[in-house]
C-alpha cells in the first residue's frame, strides 16, 4: 500500500522528491553501467511478482517485497524501487506522480536497511544457512513494517484529520509484516535450494 494522489500537500511532496533524489543520486553512482540491464531485469521480475496475490480469509493481499528486493539487489534496490513505483503509477495509476518521492523514500530506505542487515548476517555466519534464511525473513518483514510506520508518519504530518487513517495504515502494515516475513523466508529457502548463486554471487548484490 502506498500513498495515493491528492492526499499530500505540495510541500511534503516536494520534500519527498528532494530526499529521494539525494538518496537516488548517491546509490545510482555506485551502480556500474554494465549492471544497469541486469538490475532492470530483476526489477521487472519483482514488479511482476507483486501481482501474485495471497489469499487471506475473505480478502487477498498483494505483496510489497521491498525487503527481498533489498536482499537481492543491494544498494541498487533504491533506484530499482524508484523505477518500479514510477511504472506502477504510470501504467496502473497506483500511487501517483506527486507522492512518488515520498513513496520511494518510505519503501527504499527500509529496503536498504534490510540489505545491510542481511549482508551483515551473511558475511558473519556464512555456514549457518538456517540462520541466514531466518534473518532474511525477518528483514523482509521488518522492511514492510518500517515502510508502514514511515508512511503513517508522513500522513500525520500532512494533517491531523489523517491520524486515524494513519493508525489504520500502520496497523495493516504490521499485520502484513508477518505474511511478508514468512514469504521472504520461503522464497530465500527456495532460491538457496535451487540456485544459491543468486544470493551468494556478488554480481547483483553490489
Amino acid at each position, binding site marked *: 500500500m502506498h500513498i*495515493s*494522489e*491528492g*492526499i*499530500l*500537500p505540495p510541500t511534503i511532496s516536494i520534500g519527498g522528491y528532494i530526499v529521494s533524489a539525494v538518496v537516488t543520486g548517491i546509490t*545510482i553512482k555506485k*551502480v556500474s*553501467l*554494465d549492471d*544497469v*540491464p*541486469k*538490475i*532492470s*531485469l*530483476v*526489477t*521487472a*521480475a*519483482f*514488479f*511482476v*511478482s507483486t*501481482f*501474485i496475490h*495471497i*489469499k487471506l480469509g475473505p480478502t*487477498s493481499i498483494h*505483496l510489497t517485497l521491498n525487503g527481498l528486493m533489498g536482499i*537481492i539487489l543491494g544498494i541498487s534496490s533504491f*533506484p530499482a524501487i524508484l*523505477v518500479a513505483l*514510477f*511504472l506502477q*503509477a*504510470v*501504467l*496502473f*495509476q*497506483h500511487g*501517483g*506522480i*506527486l507522492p512518488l518521492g515520498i513513496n520511494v523514500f518510505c519503501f527504499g530506505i527500509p529496503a536498504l536497511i534490510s540489505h545491510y542487515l542481511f549482508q551483515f548476517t551473511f558475511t558473519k555466519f556464512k555456514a549457518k544457512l538456517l540462520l541466514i534464511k531466518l534473518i532474511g525473513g525477518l528483514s523482509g518483514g521488518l522492511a514492510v513494517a518500517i515502510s508502514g510506520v514511515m508512511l503513517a508518519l508522513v500522513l500525520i504530518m500532512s*494533517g491531523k*484529520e*489523517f*491520524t*486515524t*487513517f494513519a493508525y*489504520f495504515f500502520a496497523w495493516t502494515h504490521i499485520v502484513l509484516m508477518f*505474511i511478508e516475513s514468512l*514469504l521472504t523466508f*520461503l*522464497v530465500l*529457502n*527456495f*532460491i538457496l535450494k*535451487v540456485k544459491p548463486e*543468486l544470493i551468494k554471487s556478488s554480481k547483483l548484490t553490489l
Partner: protein
Amino acid sequence: MHIDIDRFSNINSQFHKWDERYKIISILILIISFSVVKSFYLVLTIPILALIMVTISRLPLYFVLKKLKLTLIFFLPLFILLPISSGGEIFYLIVGIKIYKIGLHLAISIFLKAISILICIMIMFGTSRFDRTIKAFYHLKIPEKLIIMILFTYRYIYIYMENLRKLNVALFLQGFKKTSNLRSILVSSSLIGNLLIRCYDQTEMVYNAMILRGFNGKLISQFRFKASKTDLFKAIIIIFISLLIVGLEIII
C-alpha cells in the same frame, strides 16, 4: 491484464501532436496546481477541466474510466475512515456513527483531486508512445541510467507477465487452487522464487546479446524532438490555466 497505457497513441489530436517535452512540463505544472487547491467549489471544477482535456485528447472515455476503476478500490478505506474520524462539526448521525463535516469534505476533495490528477497523468503518457515520452524525460535532464532502467524494466515486464501467466496455467492444470492456508503461501513463494531464478538465468544472456549489438551504456534515440510555435502556445495555455487555478485558490 492490459498494461499498455499508450494503446491509443496513434490517434490524431492536439495532445498527440504536442512535443512531449513541453507536454510533460505543462501537465506537471497543471497537476501541481490541482494539488494546491483546497477551496471546495474549486475542487468541484477541476474534474470538469480534466474531462474537457480527455475530450480534446480524444482518448476513449471507457479506456480512462477502466484504468481508474482499480484505483477507486484503494480509496475505499480513506473514504470510510476520514468522515467518521476527523472530528469537528457533526454533519449527520447514522445509527450512532457520527459523520463529520470536515472529514466528508476532505474525503470528497481528495477523491476528486486524485481522479483529476490521474486523468492528467493518463493524458501525459497515453497520447504518445511510452518509449518516446520516456526519451523526452531524458531531454529534460533525468539521469541516463534511470532512463535506461525504466525502458528495460518496461520491456521485460511484458515478458515476465507472460512467464507468470504460463506458470499460473501450469499450476491450474495441476489442480492448485488459492486458499488461505500455509500450502498456498508455500506455492506462491515458489512461484516468486521461480520467476526470479528464470530472470536471473536470462540476465547474462540478455546482457551478452546487448554487448554483441554494441551496447555501451549510452542511450541512442531514434526519436528527434522538434518544437514549433504551436507547442509553445499550447504550453502557455496550460500554464496559464494552472496559474489561474492557483490565483483563484488564493482569492477564494
